[in-house]
């Protein structure tokens, strides 16, 4: 594994998006992972539609019947991959733009699919396996506890205490080997996370969180997706 890696340097990550006042983080995490997988499959970076997921995806967790993807009220990336697999794929952002609300009806047009899921998997919780899957398969959809993100401005977040209870869906796009950690008197490795709260939040929309410990549960719900090459009809 390389000591440092960042999919932004390889053109697999779209610009930071903004979910607005809507609990649709799960849809942005899902599209981010499929945008990266589609880039690896086709060589083209295409921004995908979160609104399609918000409006049309009501997939339920098979083991928890009450836990279904439900627009601004939340969802799960693995359920969204399942929906995308079943429905055939996702349209691009400009054909089905994001509105930040879930009051609309589903306007999915199958003829405008630009990215399709070949398969998806959950990744082992071992940090090296997470890094290996990131490098091999593209950006990963991950869950995180976002309690420290409300006040985060920059730097490498490495809280002494942080719940592992996951409440936010984000995209793991890379890792670094040397984050500044003055109180620990040494450089610490970190993950690079793409968030969906706009570029004015965090480090131009990104969050850095330290590796090596169970920090905010970032390594406890990781999924990877593979895309197949799709040509719009």
């Amino acid at each position, binding site marked *: *594994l390389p000591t440092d890696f960042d999919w932004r340097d390889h053109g697999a990550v779209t610009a930071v998006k903004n*979910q607005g*006042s*809507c*609990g*649709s*983080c*799960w849809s942005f995490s899902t599209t981010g992972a499929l945008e990266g997988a589609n880039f690896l499959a086709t060589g083209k970076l295409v921004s995908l539609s979160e609104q399609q997921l918000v409006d049309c995806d009501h997939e339920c*967790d*098979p083991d*928890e019947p009450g*836990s*279904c993807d439900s627009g601004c*009220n*939340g*969802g*799960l990336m*693995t359920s969204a991959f399942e929906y995308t697999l079943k429905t055939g794929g996702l349209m691009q952002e400009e054909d089905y733009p994001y509105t930040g609300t879930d009051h609309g009806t589903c306007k999915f047009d199958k003829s405008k699919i630009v990215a399709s899921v070949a*398969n*998806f*998997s*959950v*990744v*082992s919780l071992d940090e*090296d*396996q997470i890094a*290996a*899957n990131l490098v091999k398969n593209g950006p990963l959809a991950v*869950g995180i506890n*976002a309690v*420290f993100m*409300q*006040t985060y*401005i920059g*730097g*490498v*977040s*490495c*809280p*002494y*205490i942080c719940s592992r209870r*996951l*409440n*936010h*869906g984000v995209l793991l796009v890379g890792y670094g080997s040397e*984050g500044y*950690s*003055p*109180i*620990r*008197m*040494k450089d610490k490795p970190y993950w690079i996370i793409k968030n969906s*709260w*706009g570029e*004015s*939040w965090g480090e131009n929309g990104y969050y*850095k969180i*330290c590796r090596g410990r169970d920090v905010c549960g970032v390594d406890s*719900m990781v999924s*990877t997706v593979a895309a197949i090459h799709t040509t719009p009809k």
Partner: protein
Amino acid sequence: STVSSNEPEDLLIRQVVAHDDDLLMNAEHHFTNFKSKFGKSYATREEHAYRLGVFKANLRRARRHQKLDPSAVHGITQFSDLTPAEFRRTYLGLKRLRIPADAHKAPILPTND
């Protein structure tokens, strides 16, 4: 104060800093800047007063976060006028996951070389 860590050998020297109460001392000034920077406005005087109170609570929270998370920078963000519950309700949306036993697990990859 005490500092706990999983890596006590790292704590040969404890960083000692003065309490920086500038944010809290000048909370109303910072609230004015916050409203301007993030384009916030409130419909009534009561709402304004309430949001100022929430903002001050979040300044104290940011200071706590700074102590708990010293390698990051914590402070005023676009969410500084929201209570933690409002923040969770409005901007977070990950449902609880119970990974099924038959979930497709990614194959173990080699990590040497």
